[in-house]
């Protein structure tokens, strides 16, 4: 994933983009925590809301894979189903962890 390319598509410089990515990582892990709570409370509505939040942020930054995964999670949770969510969460955590800007120099 080319941060410089994503930054220029958004019209921000690379340093600003890295700051946004760091914030995205922080807020997304917070939202993942809410999804996990939604699962443990068997509350699909809460899981859907948190997935919606991740979807929006990922879409704004151009992280298409995270956007697609969060969108699918949101749609499924809105239908009342949390099946397979633990696996989705693992996938989500891996994708978000891979964004750590410090690994990109």
């Amino acid at each position: 994933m080319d941060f410089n390319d994503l930054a220029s598509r958004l019209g921000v410089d690379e340093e600003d983009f890295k700051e946004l990515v760091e914030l995205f990582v922080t807020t997304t892990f917070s939202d993942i925590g809410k999804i996990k709570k939604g699962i443990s409370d068997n509350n699909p509505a809460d899981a859907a809301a948190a997935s919606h939040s991740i979807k929006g942020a990922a879409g704004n930054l151009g992280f298409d894979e995270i956007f697609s995964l969060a969108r699918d999670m949101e749609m499924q949770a809105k239908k009342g189903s949390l099946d397979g969510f633990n696996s989705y969460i693992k996938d989500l955590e891996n994708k978000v962890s891979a964004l750590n800007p410090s690994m990109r120099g």
Partner: protein
Amino acid sequence: MEQKQPYTVLAVDDNRLNLKLIEKSLSKEGYKIFCADNGPDARAIALKEKPDLILLDIEMPGESGFDVIRKLKDNAETNAIPVLFLTGVSEVDSKLKGFDLGAVDYITKPFHPLEVLARVRIHLKLSIATNSLITGQANKLRQLTEAQVSMLPTPADNPDAKFGVYYKALEEAGGDFYDILNISENIKGYFVADFSGHDIKTSYMTASVKALLAQNCTPVYSPIESIKMINDVLVEIMPGGKYLTACYMHINRTTHKLTIINAGHPPVVCLPVKGEPFLIKTEGDILGMFKDAHFGVQSLTVSSGDRFFAYSDGLVESAEKKITWASGADSLLPVYREVAGVPYEQAPEALIHYLFGKGTLPEDDIVVLCVEV
């Protein structure tokens, strides 16, 4: 130069990343941004700060965007603030509900910051247009009965603008004029003009142009839009046969972008921090004569330390030596290199002394403005 209040935008979204993205994108274009991540805080900020525009997410926990706009429109102090919804909800019914509640537009998520910026500009322009029309500005200016004194801003009064200036009027009512526009903290405008004629009408028009610059050089308008709007008013109010040439430099020191608008004026000289001086040549119609005037536009990426010189034709023309600015400007390029080591505040005066020496009087009014990025 008067400190102008920036346009303010209130961004409301329960996702901090979205708020940060909006704040970064809009603030570097001169807007002041307030942020709120929930409905009650948003309404409190709107009441206190009276933002010029609100960007409002629909799906938020607790009070939704629809609830927020309902309450804003119910309050006489906030009901006139234009509201744009930021939403991932794409159903037509939802959009219609938003419009029924008083929203002026929708931006669908995921949003691109440049789209947000474009829509903010459009709706601020619409908001301004309902309050003040071009003919309204012209009528106010016709009522001016005296020119303002001390209209020319000084570097000492405006240290953030990083400029130096040399100004000399040949007669009491000089035709040359300059102004500095404090568009936002990091965006400044630099305007140099040369009026035809040297009489009391020129003084009157100088005050009018200064007022028009203050009204129209704002973050909402691009540089070319600002100059076109000013031209539209000048065409209505300029005395017959009068016109002006002008050069407008718009510098955004955050994005390092310089835009030059040329209205029949001598070309700006660029003295880069590394490299030789060169002319930035554009051609454009004069101001105040033609309703459908076309102005020259040049945009450059600039670096810290680059200098730009805008000046009136008195610097480069000589009726005695039969030199017009078209040829004179080129021949003077090497002189700019001579003042490269002089602080920018003193560079214009150094340039004048280098060109004219101590004993020679210039043939015309002269203004030289040096701006350093």
